[in-house]
């Protein structure tokens, strides 16, 4: 860690001064005690699209996630830098949290599974049908946290074939092509958000 700051303005200054590898911030920060942290993140990403940022929040809300992951906030690039949005409680799961931090630093998209579940619930209620099975929802939740196929295999203790089958099913149901990595996370988000 290179610097800890107490408010959104100092965050912007500190990033400019020491160009860190990763920024971890709360959605809510002084001075405004509103979504100052989120605003600062969006500004940072706009001026430096290569800066990985992990946003933590006391409670996750779809509205913040939608804002954070809206393409066009940052210039569209084939490989945008890592971006994460997690519930603060996840810090307690030290191992998982450390992995999430590393993945974001390495350029992955990490979205709290709760956000994905809520977006799915919203979508299901709009269409009055359950799109994904419970297992598929679980897989989608992990995918949104930036899990690769190999990590999914280990986390769920299933075979590579089973992972591929789940992902294939999910993407078929969502009508998306099964890319790997960030693009599939973004595709899922875009699908859940816009439909």
């Amino acid at each position, binding site marked *: 860690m290179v610097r800890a700051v107490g408010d959104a303005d100092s965050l912007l200054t500190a990033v400019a001064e020491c160009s860190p590898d990763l920024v971890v911030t709360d959605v809510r*920060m002084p001075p405004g*005690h509103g979504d100052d942290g989120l605003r600062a993140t969006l500004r940072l990403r706009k001026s430096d699209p290569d800066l990985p940022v992990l946003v933590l929040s*006391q*409670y996750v*809300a*779809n*509205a913040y996630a939608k804002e954070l992951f809206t393409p066009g906030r940052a210039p569209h690039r084939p490989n945008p830098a890592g971006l994460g949005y997690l519930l603060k409680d996840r*810090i*307690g799961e030290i*191992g998982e949290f450390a992995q999430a931090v590393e993945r974001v630093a390495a350029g992955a998209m990490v979205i709290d599974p709760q956000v994905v579940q809520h977006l799915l619930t919203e979508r299901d209620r709009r269409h009055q049908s359950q799109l994904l099975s419970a297992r598929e929802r679980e897989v989608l939740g992990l995918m949104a946290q930036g899990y690769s196929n190999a990590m999914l295999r280990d986390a769920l203790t299933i075979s590579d074939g089973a992972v591929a089958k789940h992902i294939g099913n999910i993407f078929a149901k969502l009508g998306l092509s099964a890319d790997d990595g960030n693009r599939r996370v973004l595709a899922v988000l875009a699908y859940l958000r816009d439909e």
Partner: protein
Amino acid sequence: MTRSPAAFLTSAAPWRSLAYLATSVLLGLVSLVVLGGLVVSGLLLSVLGIGLAVLAGAVLLGIPLAALERRRLRLLDGPHADRPGSPHGPVTRPGLWPWLTTRLREPATWREFGYAVVFTVLLPLVDLVLLAVVVPLFALIAAPAYVAVDSTQPEALVLTGIGIAGLPVAAYVLGAAAAAQSWFVRLMLSPREGEQSDRVVELTRSRARMADAFEAERRRIERDLHDGAQQHLVALVMTLGLAELEFRTADQEAGKGGELVSRARREAKQALDELRDLIRGIHPQVLTDHGIAAAVSEIAVRCRVPVSVDMDLTGRLPAQIEATAYFFVSEALTNVVKHSGAAAASVHGRLTAGRLAVTVTDDGVGGAGLRDGGGLQGLADRVAVVDGRLTLSSPAGGPTALSLEIPCQPSHSVSSSPRTRRSSAKGSPSC
């Protein structure tokens, strides 16, 4: 007196009229002496200057007289009838002089004085009419008794007959006189537009101020919990997580200790969850940041009953209205889950013609009531503060629809968004 003649004559109304007019006579006489005395002596003394004070006293005498007159309407209309309130405004500073200047500047005071003059001067005439009509009637009825002293004469019985026949006429005359006088009292002594209504506006304003204060307080509590207890719990969860990790990596034989730490971490996490739910009920951050539509879709997605949301609101609304509407939807959905047994619910919101209308509908069993002293009453109270209206349609068997209407204008200004800044540097880094 609009009732049928028999009903009027056998009711208490004629007697009430008689009592009202009789006390008028007495009061008129007292007033004649006191008011007349003051005015005359005031005029006489006006050359000395002190006379002006006496005259002012005469004017102010109208105030207690008017108060008494408003009260006395109860003699006529019964103790529970509506009677006019005082037309006088509040006196803001203590002391005799502020009271005098306030009262003498009020039109109501002069109207009351005018009434006092008319009441004092006109009353003898009313008095004469009464005497001229009623007393002779009783005299006629009693005629045989007078005549009997001398001898029995059939003419006396005729007079008695006339007297008895005249009683209903007298009752109507009394009634009419009393009604005319009470009409005059209401005309002169009721608060006029801009008098008492000022105070109603003032009351409404202070109620709205209080509601604003409550709203600010809710946000302060939420912020303090976020910056205080929540941060500490997050830190606790993290420390326990580290301890857990330590046990796992350093000592495979940790056994009970490691297990207890894991349990402590889960319990701390549970506390954090509960605190989060509590805060969501007070004033969620997303409401402040993204407005009512976003906040409502967050409650909907968490609701155990499937809720479809259709909130078409562009722009932000004043903070207090957003908070009230949020609380409304939150309470309504809580009731849906608790009582309705519904399989689905929907939230519909629109802003049309300066009114925010939100309706929560469910397909449950119906039969909900506003007067069951439950959450709905508290909700109705809170809605009333922003001049809103709460309507409930819940026939037995359902469906139930709870609607909220609040007059409001959309606002885009920053001032409506409650991002109060903290002056001190107390805000700790949130991480």
